[in-house]
């Protein structure tokens, strides 16, 4: 397989650019064809094909690659500082050259990351086996089942910034360096990825496939057996890591629901767009409830446009089975959300409604149009209506509290600001995802923290009403939201912040027929707190997310997050500054005398100096020392001094991150549930496109809208 370097990626440019192979050319042609078809379909409905994910994914991948590079070079520096041997543990094929370019260094660092995350590569596990017993290495003997691929993501990156499939691919490349794998960072990402993995000749021994679904899938789509998995050095299978992690919940409860590959899926090719969307959902690159549905529906539009039924058969008969296979793949990547389920059910019913007499092309373009309309009506336009309703509920001087990052809430808040409402926003956030940072970033970008502007406009235009309206201030001087601003706080500060909050806006993943709300973990806590402080809880939610199911608690069905996300990462300060390019070191932060600044997203950080006592670099160097010591054993005669140093470093490391050894510690379990259920009485109002409704009215909406859904 030849290298197909994409010139747009700066980091890749150092690679030798060979002429496009025949296969790649064919692929490119197909892609172009597909794109053209899609563009025609979409233009009809006035959807701009340029706003598709393809471009954004590229730029995202690029940005991420850059970040990765920075991090890698930092790590490298730390390693050098610690005096650890710069020896490459990926010593399998490539000779260690003195001059390593940035890219190689990055890959190496990525590989190291994997290795230190206790997923064994051939080289490291061999080295480890030679070196003897070590708690970390004992993990190497486990086979990570394929459906536990999420582990890999965690080791590749911090949970806050899950890697794109592109980053993951680079690690794969680094691990199998002698078998370069083709990459294509465009829309056909996943396809190239699959092809690359399939075509690469893997040397005997274990491999890590990161970011890719799994070999079964590859086998299913090609028909050829292709075993690529994460195998331990010994190759023996042990119990699933995930079950291992949470034995009390291992029998179904809290289990990641992993769909079995049905036999019907065999022989049906998965569309590259579906692969792309599936992977991006699995890596949490697409994680919002709305974003997931929109991207899945758009992918389905492409699938339908590209679909040709087998000769002598009718489209409407075969399309449903064809789609089922695609859906299976998606569910395999990440459990379906309620909104996705509803949208897919709707799509299937539309397919069944195609009359037998209809021409295939007509039927296809009709379905594509309908999908576009569904997205427009049920999601985009619904969001507009909801934002309008929400703006009505935000008054001047309000202090709005929100949790995490909900696209609907974000839209609503920005709409309210655009309407000239003057209010303050408190973004409450929690580990491990820290989604709220994204929201803060967006709000600051939208000018929420621009206090001068708010004061200037507010002071002049509303001089009469604002000071007169002391009653709405009520909550204490200086705390009211008349002067705008954004605050960011951990969820632990909730009960303090709730005192000054006048309204709580929460995002929802789904509403059940009994009025209970399914949302990201922590939402119930915020709603409970609001309820006990008598603060109204307002939930914007499109009706397509309503479910006829009833769920009484969060353990009946939940999505289990990766336990490792709960560990504090060594060398990565948990209190990472907000914003993508923010480079404040913790030591620069200072205590602010102004209460408002003390927990604000403005650059004058509150952070007591104790934060900076143990700088991140020190921990990183300790890790590097520990890792370097371990690996260096084989080559160098280990001095007793080095061992004690290593032991010390390890001990310090364990002190810093007591959870890092959780896998090998008996009866220590981490549980990372990602969703919870908020009881109906904690939600004051749901803003939907059909109006403001109480939680008790969900069944009515479901009933009245049944024919329209």
């Amino acid at each position, binding site marked *: 397989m030849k290298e197909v370097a994409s010139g747009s990626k700066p980091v890749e440019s150092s690679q030798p650019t060979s002429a496009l192979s025949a296969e790649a050319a064919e692929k490119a042609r197909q892609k172009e064809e597909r794109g053209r078809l899609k563009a025609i379909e979409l233009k009809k409905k006035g959807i701009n094909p340029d706003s598709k994910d393809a471009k954004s994914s590229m730029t995202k991948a690029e940005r991420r690659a850059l970040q990765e590079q920075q991090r890698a070079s930092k790590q490298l520096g730390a390693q050098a500082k610690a005096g650890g041997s710069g020896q490459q543990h990926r010593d399998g094929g490539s000779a260690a050259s003195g001059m390593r370019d940035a890219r190689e260094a990055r890959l190496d660092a990525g590989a190291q990351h994997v290795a230190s995350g206790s997923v064994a590569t051939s080289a490291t596990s061999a080295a480890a086996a030679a070196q003897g017993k070590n708690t970390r290495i004992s993990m190497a003997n486990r086979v990570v089942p394929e459906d536990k691929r999420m582990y890999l993501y965690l080791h590749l990156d911090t949970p806050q910034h899950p890697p794109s499939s592109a980053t993951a691919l680079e690690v794969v490349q680094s691990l199998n360096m002698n078998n370069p794998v083709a990459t294509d960072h465009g829309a056909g990402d996943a396809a190239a990825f699959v092809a690359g993995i399939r075509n690469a000749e893997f040397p005997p021994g274990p491999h890590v496939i990161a970011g890719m679904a799994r070999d079964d899938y590859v086998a299913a789509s090609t028909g050829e057996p292709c075993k690529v998995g994460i195998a331990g050095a010994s190759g023996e299978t042990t119990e699933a890591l995930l079950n291992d992690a949470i034995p009390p919940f291992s029998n179904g409860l809290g289990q990641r629901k992993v769909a079995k590959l049905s036999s019907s899926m065999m022989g049906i090719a998965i569309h590259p767009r579906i692969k792309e969307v599936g992977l991006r959902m699995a890596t949490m690159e697409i994680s919002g409830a709305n974003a997931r549905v929109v991207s899945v529906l758009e992918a389905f539009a492409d699938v339908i446009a590209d679909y040709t039924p087998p000769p002598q058969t009718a489209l409407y008969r075969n399309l449903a089975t064809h789609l089922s296979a695609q859906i299976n793949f998606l569910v395999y990547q990440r459990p379906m959300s309620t909104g996705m389920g509803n949208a897919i059910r709707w799509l299937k019913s539309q397919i069944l409604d195609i009359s037998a007499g209809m021409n295939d092309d007509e039927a296809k373009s009709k379905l594509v149009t309908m999908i576009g309309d569904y997205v427009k009506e049920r999601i985009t336009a619904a969001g507009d209506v909801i934002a309008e309703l929400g703006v009505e509920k935000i008054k001047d001087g309000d202090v709005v509290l929100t949790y995490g990052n909900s696209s609907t809430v974000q839209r609503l808040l920005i709409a309210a600001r655009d309407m000239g409402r003057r209010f303050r926003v408190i973004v409450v956030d929690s580990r491990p995802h820290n989604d709220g940072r994204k929201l803060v970033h967006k709000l600051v970008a939208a000018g929420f923290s621009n206090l001068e502007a708010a004061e200037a406009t507010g002071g002049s235009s509303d001089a009469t009403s604002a000071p*007169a309206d002391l009653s709405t201030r009520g909550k204490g001087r200086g705390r009211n939201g008349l002067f705008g601003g954004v605050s960011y706080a951990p969820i632990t500060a909730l009960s303090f912040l709730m005192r000054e909050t006048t309204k709580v806006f929460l995002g929802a993943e789904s509403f059940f027929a009994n009025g209970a709300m399914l949302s990201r973990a922590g939402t119930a806590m915020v709603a409970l707190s609001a309820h006990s402080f008598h603060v109204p809880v307002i939930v914007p939610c499109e009706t397509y997310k309503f479910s006829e199911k009833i769920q009484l608690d969060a353990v009946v069905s939940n999505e289990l997050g990766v336990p490792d996300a709960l560990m504090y990462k060594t060398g990565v300060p948990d209190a990472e500054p907000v914003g993508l390019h923010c480079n404040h070191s913790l030591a620069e932060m200072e205590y602010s005398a102004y209460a408002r600044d003390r927990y604000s997203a403005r650059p004058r950080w509150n952070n007591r100096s104790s934060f900076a006592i143990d700088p991140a670099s020190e921990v990183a160097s300790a890790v590097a020392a520990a890792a370097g010591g371990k690996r260096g054993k084989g080559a160098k005669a280990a001095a007793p001094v080095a061992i004690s140093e290593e032991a010390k470093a390890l001990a310090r490391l364990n002190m810093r991150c007591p959870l890092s050894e959780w896998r090998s510690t008996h009866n220590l379990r981490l549980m990372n549930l990602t969703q919870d259920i908020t009881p109906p009485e904690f939600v*004051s109002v749901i803003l939907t496109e059909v*109006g403001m409704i109480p939680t008790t*009215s969900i069944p*009515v909406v479901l009933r009245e809208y049944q024919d329209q859904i």
Partner: protein
Amino acid sequence: MAGNSTFGTGFNVVQHYNAVLQQDPSISAPVAAVSSLVRLVEQQRATTMLELMKIVPEACSQLKRATHDSISLSAGCDVFLQQMARLSQGQSAEECSRALIQAGSEFVQGAGRCRDRVAEFGSAFVRDDHTILVHSYSRVIMGLLRRAVKQNKRFRVYVTESRPDQSGLKAAEELQALGVPCEVVLDAAVGYIMEKVDLVLAGAEGVVESGGLINKIGTYQLAIVAKAAKKPFYALAESFKFVRLYPLSQYDLPTHRSDLLAFKDSKPTEDWHARLAATNPMLDYTPPELITLLFTDLGVMTPSGVSDELIKFYLD
């Protein structure tokens, strides 16, 4: 009213509304609004649907402005507009206005019966030897009590004085004429008498989408005291008082003005009596948690039933 256009018909909708109310004080605001709107549609000579769709909403907003955003009036206007939206589909202006006039007239005629239906459903809750607490003066409550008297039920009534307009006194007079033993209590004495009370009745200016109540000031605290004393709190409302609003608090009501109780600077010789009436709110919002049941002409329903009805009405 100055600034009110008459749409070239010489018909002033606000004048007509006021005239209707003066003519028959027993008519309630939404009904008067609908009958004025019907007259307007009769008078206008719109030739296109577009014109009609402009005239009627404009008249509605005139009415609302003239009455300082009266909640129940806007409920009536909303009903009419919804009716129009429903009838406008695929019809000419003439057909639509004819259908609208018919529907509106039926509504006005049926409105009187609504109150009887409420009394019919609600009177079953009044039993011999009951002590009833009534807030303020409400025609629909009076209808219910009159019905209960006719059913030969013996009961006592506490009526709150209901400051500042002291409308409770009017209620007491009517009850006395009916021969019902009654007492007028201070608004501040509600807590004192609550333990003697068997049930609490309140009328409604409007019933909102959450199932909560907008009513004469004092209703909210009455409901809180009733809840604390674990007494049933029943609200009476005709279904045309259901209004598309979802207040989250008292300050979320359309009737809230920023100059109400706003700690304005006072003159050294402030006339506190005058200021009291001027700066106090006249309506408050009672959240659905405090309401036991609503007696409506559609039947006896829980607060959540109201939002169900509203969704059904406005969603097709």
